[in-house]
């Protein structure tokens, strides 16, 4: 049992770990994940009492506060009760000692065993970590990376410690070696209390039963590994998971926007968080229980942006939508797929208030929408299916992009022009006067679509409803535009309701998918699942008809 209470670690003026509280029960494997610089290694070293910084707080092993002990007593605990696998493979060995000698060293140092017994145990350990006895006679430089890692693990196991701390045990290894080491670690971990520090989410997923997400010395999210990595609820964790490439992830890589400011009040993630509110920069969020997990976020993690319940729309006898329910979270892309006539566009029009639904309710940021007013439209914008139609032929580029600002009465004319130019640059259109004075019929299809997107984004909405935004474009321009929209999602936390008939495209951009057929949602779920294991026959049919270059 390992307990960390109010741990604060500073290097000079720099606070690396901030009031950290963690409990690791016996037999638990806790992975501490985060970007480099999050304080992972500092945390791991402090657990060994090896951290060079100024350490405050308590680290309690079996009721004893390790930090309050004097150094000689700490040494007694070290390697007997707590041992560590260090991060840097090459620098963790003494180059002039054989591997066997190094494995024996802790036993001899603590005078637990005689030299002979120690040697016997060392050979046993070598065998246990899968190294041939002959490797024991070798010097560290004669071993490969994977073998070194095994040797290090053997070293950590010598005195049979109860608590094991591993700092990036798989960082420098290739995939196959990594898999073997993971197998080994799984065996080694039995009955031990383990803290696994890693930036490799897949290692954490395989080895740990719980995960703590560390960012700038604070825990952002804590909970069961499967829950957190498959369904991250903190915006930071979500960014981390989105940037990690896995085979089953279908959406393209996304990251975390910008860098956090180190010294700031309130939440450490606030200045780059896309769903921050005013309080976020003032109040430090506490790790609070939300269902199975704990989240440190004033907003309770990723917030729900739009919720649709039981939406039904009948056009003179034809039912276009039959009890459609869906929800969109902040910073999420939800794809609505289906063939033409399945009610996709009707859904978009109903959400935008351009068509009145016969039944059902729509909630935006928790509030039921009764009247579609200017405030609603400031936060929700739509990209229409056909850019040629949705831009008036009487307005030039500048007037087109400024129109939403004019209608919303936002800013002075100069500010509007400034914002419009920025929106144009965001979509990679020129902002020179010559271009600003052009009319819609002077622009190419791709430019028009980008202009329509710039116009929808100039109000900086939270939700973008994109109705087949690229169906009229060729693939290369489509790719550019989709990249652009996803970049904006990363930067601004834009939520996107992406309506499309192109499943191949939906697979690349969406987090979740809703399959619509004859106005009904026949299948819903994470994109990773739907595209690999479609359940409904209609989804399978759609997938079969999707573009591919395979010969089977």
């Amino acid at each position, binding site marked *: 049992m390992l307990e960390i209470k109010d741990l604060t670690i500073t290097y000079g003026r720099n606070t690396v770990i901030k009031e950290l509280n963690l409990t690791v029960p016996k037999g638990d494997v806790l992975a501490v994940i985060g970007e480099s610089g999050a304080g992972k290694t500092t945390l791991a070293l402090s657990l060994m009492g090896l951290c060079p910084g100024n350490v405050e707080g308590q680290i309690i092993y079996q009721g004893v506060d390790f930090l309050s002990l004097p150094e000689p007593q700490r040494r007694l605990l070290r390697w007997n009760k707590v041992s560590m696998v260090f991060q840097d493979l090459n620098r963790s060995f003494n180059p002039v000692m054989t591997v066997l000698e190094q494995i024996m060293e802790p036993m001899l140092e603590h005078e637990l065993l005689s030299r002979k017994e120690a040697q016997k145990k060392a050979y046993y350990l070598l065998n246990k970590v899968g190294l041939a006895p002959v490797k024991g006679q070798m010097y560290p430089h004669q071993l490969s990376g994977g073998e070194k890692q095994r040797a290090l693990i053997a070293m950590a196991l010598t005195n049979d410690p109860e608590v094991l701390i591993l700092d990036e045990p798989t960082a420098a290894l290739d995939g196959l070696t990594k898999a073997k080491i993971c197998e080994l670690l799984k065996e080694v971990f039995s009955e031990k209390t383990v803290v696994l520090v890693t930036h490799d989410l897949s290692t954490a997923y395989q080895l740990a039963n719980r995960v703590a997400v560390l960012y700038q010395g604070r825990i952002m999210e804590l909970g069961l590994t499967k829950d957190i990595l498959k369904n991250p609820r903190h915006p930071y964790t979500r960014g981390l998971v989105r940037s990690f490439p896995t085979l089953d992830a279908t959406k393209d890589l996304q990251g975390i926007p910008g860098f956090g400011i180190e010294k700031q009040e309130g939440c450490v993630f606030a200045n780059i968080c896309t769903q921050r509110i005013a309080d976020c920069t003032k109040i430090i969020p506490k790790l609070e229980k939300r269902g199975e997990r704990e989240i440190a976020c004033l907003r309770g993690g990723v917030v729900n942006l739009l919720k649709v319940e039981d939406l039904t729309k009948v056009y003179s006898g034809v039912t276009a939508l039959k009890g459609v329910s869906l929800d969109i979270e902040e910073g999420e892309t939800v794809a609505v797929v289906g063939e033409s006539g399945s009610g996709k566009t009707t859904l978009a029009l109903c959400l935008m208030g351009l068509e009145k639904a016969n039944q059902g309710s729509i909630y935006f940021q928790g509030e039921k929408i009764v009247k579609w007013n200017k405030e609603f439209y400031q936060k929700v914008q739509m990209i*229409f*299916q056909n850019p040629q139609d949705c831009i008036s*032929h*009487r307005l030039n580029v500048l007037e087109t992009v400024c129109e939403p600002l004019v209608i*919303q009465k936002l800013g002075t004319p100069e500010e509007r022009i400034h914002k419009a130019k920025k929106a144009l640059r965001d979509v990679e259109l020129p902002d020179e006067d010559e271009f600003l004075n052009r009319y819609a019929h002077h622009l190419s299809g791709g430019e028009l679509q980008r202009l329509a997107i710039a116009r929808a984004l100039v109000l900086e909405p939270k939700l973008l409803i994109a109705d087949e935004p690229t169906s009229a474009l060729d693939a290369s321009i489509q790719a550019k535009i989709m990249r652009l929209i996803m970049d904006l999602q990363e930067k601004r936390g834009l939520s996107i309701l992406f309506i499309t008939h192109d499943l191949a495209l939906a697979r690349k951009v969406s987090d979740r998918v809703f399959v619509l057929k004859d106005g009904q949602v026949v299948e819903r779920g994470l994109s990773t699942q739907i595209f690999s294991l479609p359940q409904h026959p209609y989804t399978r049919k759609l997938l079969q008809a999707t573009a591919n270059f395979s010969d089977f």
Partner: protein
Amino acid sequence: MHINYVRGFKENRLGRLGIIFLALILSIAFLAPVLTAYSPRQVSENILQPPSQKHWLGTNDLGQDIWSRVIFGARTSFITALSVGILTVTLAVFIGCSAALLRGIYERFVLRLIDIFLIIPNILLLLLTAAYLRPGPVTMVIVLSIFNWPGCARIIRAQTLTLQEKSHIKAAKTFGAGTFYILVKHIIPDLGPILASSFIAHARRAVFMEAGLAFLGISDPLLISWGTIINRALQYSYLNNWYWLLPPALGLSLTVMAFSFLGYTLEEILNPRLKVGKNAGD
């Protein structure tokens, strides 16, 4: 679709002709006081004179200079045409757009009202009303406009309904635009071509109607109008006074033709399929 009107008119023969006619009559009307030495109302003893150096088109039964009366008549014609055109189109836009935007009972009421106006023979009603009211120039414009708006309003309502379904107007709604903004910034400008052709059609009609009513002696007898001149001339037709009868008739024809040509041209510009020997979209 973006339309270049200037180029359209330049390239069209009838269009050029229409503009030339219109410019000719307009400049005559505008420069009337310079083009004659006589006041059109000046009565003199020299009655029923044939054309001479002094009176280019002779004088009428009251000794008034006919040339002066003809060129001042152009003014009446034009002012009536413009006023009726503007008033009719304004009424039609107001009623047609409001019907399309507000829908409901109001729209049905407007549509039935339009039907009623279109069913009852216009001329008859106009004659009766004019005969009853004995209209001055202002009343004349109002009366003509009241009988003209229904057809135009019907077209405008239909077009407004179509325009409302256009994506760019829906897009404006999704920026939070109200009905008034959409009407003023999107629908009315988009109605431009229809408004222009309606205006021309109704102006042309007004020229004709005004002259017709004046000819029948229903309008203000003191008004200098081509209709009154023709009426007078006909009473003295036994004098073989072509110089008296022909010029106002010619002015009338020229004006009506000018407006007609402009109307045709506009139609051709707006509907490329009407272009002779050219493919649509050229």
